[in-house]
């Protein structure tokens, strides 16, 4: 396991996932998807709505995140997010209500560009899952 590193995903309620042998994580960073391997340079970045892919051996785990921030240092990656759902556990009803919610938010005239962009992203991702 020489090329594996630590991963911790926390949301406000609990430690969502913790593993010490992931080989690669792909996160939807704000400026584009980013793959993180062992010995990556220390980095802090934040996430836009999207899919986090976690590679452990031959297994791939996919999680939907709504926002968050990642920190990678000394071969341990922390992902902090306020909303995270395993794609396998996501329900059709929840999806459509989330999409509706986002569409509602878009109607707000005062939304600034960044928020509008993020919400659009969210709708895209959710539609793809649907």
């Amino acid at each position, binding site marked *: 396991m020489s090329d594996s590193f630590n991963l911790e995903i926390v949301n406000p309620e609990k*430690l969502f996932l913790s593993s010490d042998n992931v080989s690669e994580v792909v996160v939807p960073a704000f400026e584009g998807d980013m793959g993180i391997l062992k010995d990556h340079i220390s980095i802090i970045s934040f996430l836009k709505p999207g899919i986090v892919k976690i590679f452990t051996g031959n297994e791939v785990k996919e999680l939907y995140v709504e926002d968050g921030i990642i920190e990678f240092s000394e071969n341990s990656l922390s992902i902090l997010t306020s909303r995270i759902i395993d794609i396998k556990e996501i329900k059709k009803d929840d999806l459509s209500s989330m999409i509706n919610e986002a569409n509602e938010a878009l109607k707000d005239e005062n939304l600034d560009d960044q928020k509008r962009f993020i919400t659009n992203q969210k709708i895209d991702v959710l539609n793809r899952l649907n």
Partner: protein
Amino acid sequence: MASLDDLKKRITSVKSTQKITKAMKMVAAAKLRKAQESAEKGRPYSDKMHNIILNLSKNINDKENAPKLLAGSGKDNVHLCVVMTSDRGLCGGFNSNITKKAKSYFKKILDSGKELKIVTIGSKGFDQLKRAYKEQIIEKFSFKESKNVNYFDADKVGKMIIEKFEKGEFDVCTIFFNKFKNVITQIPQEQQIIPLKSEKSDEKNDVMNYEFEPEEDEILNNLLPKNISTQIFKAMLENSASEQGSRMSAMDNATRNAGEMVEKLTIEYNRSRQAAITKELIEIISGAESL
């Protein structure tokens, strides 16, 4: 002296009160375990968040242009106090401890001629503060409907606070809550969240060289509002654990007191019953003697 019937009634009434307090204690104990668990589970998030912000702020060289949430608005005139209490009573000194702490802080602020604004979370705090500080309370929240403390409630409060800060309605924000130490001890706390008080960084010079994507200040701008919500969420979790703990010990005391009372009343009841019997006997005997 009360009649036998009255005593009997009182004993039953105390006994049923005891049953209620006992049941409440059990419920509080069960809820406490859950609340404590979630308070502990919530810690990694806020700790990590804190660490990242610490790392970020170390990397900011240009202190002048630091985001206002971190550095403050440069003034110290208007103080916003967020007082967190419970929605239910019967939990000992839980609520009054917080409001006492808050009130002494309010006094300090008002005495130094600064303006005070209050936000209450939880209806008990509002009830206790509305008499003395009616004018200063600008907003009140109550999350009675949410069964458990959840992040979205905290986020709502956080967003409101940030909005007010951006409008320049206050300069300093402090939150008041009870920190859960153990079942018997809860410590009322005040914590300043805007501007962020950086604890005396222990001068560790091993500042990690992080790569930032996007720029530091952009990340900070995005992160600081989240941190506010996180801090409030943490406080809410601590508070709910404290509330249950405090209720548990209060109800435990009440159950014990009721037990003592029942004992005392039973002795009194037995005594007066014996007195009545003796009196009757004397009457019969003296009646027989006079024949």
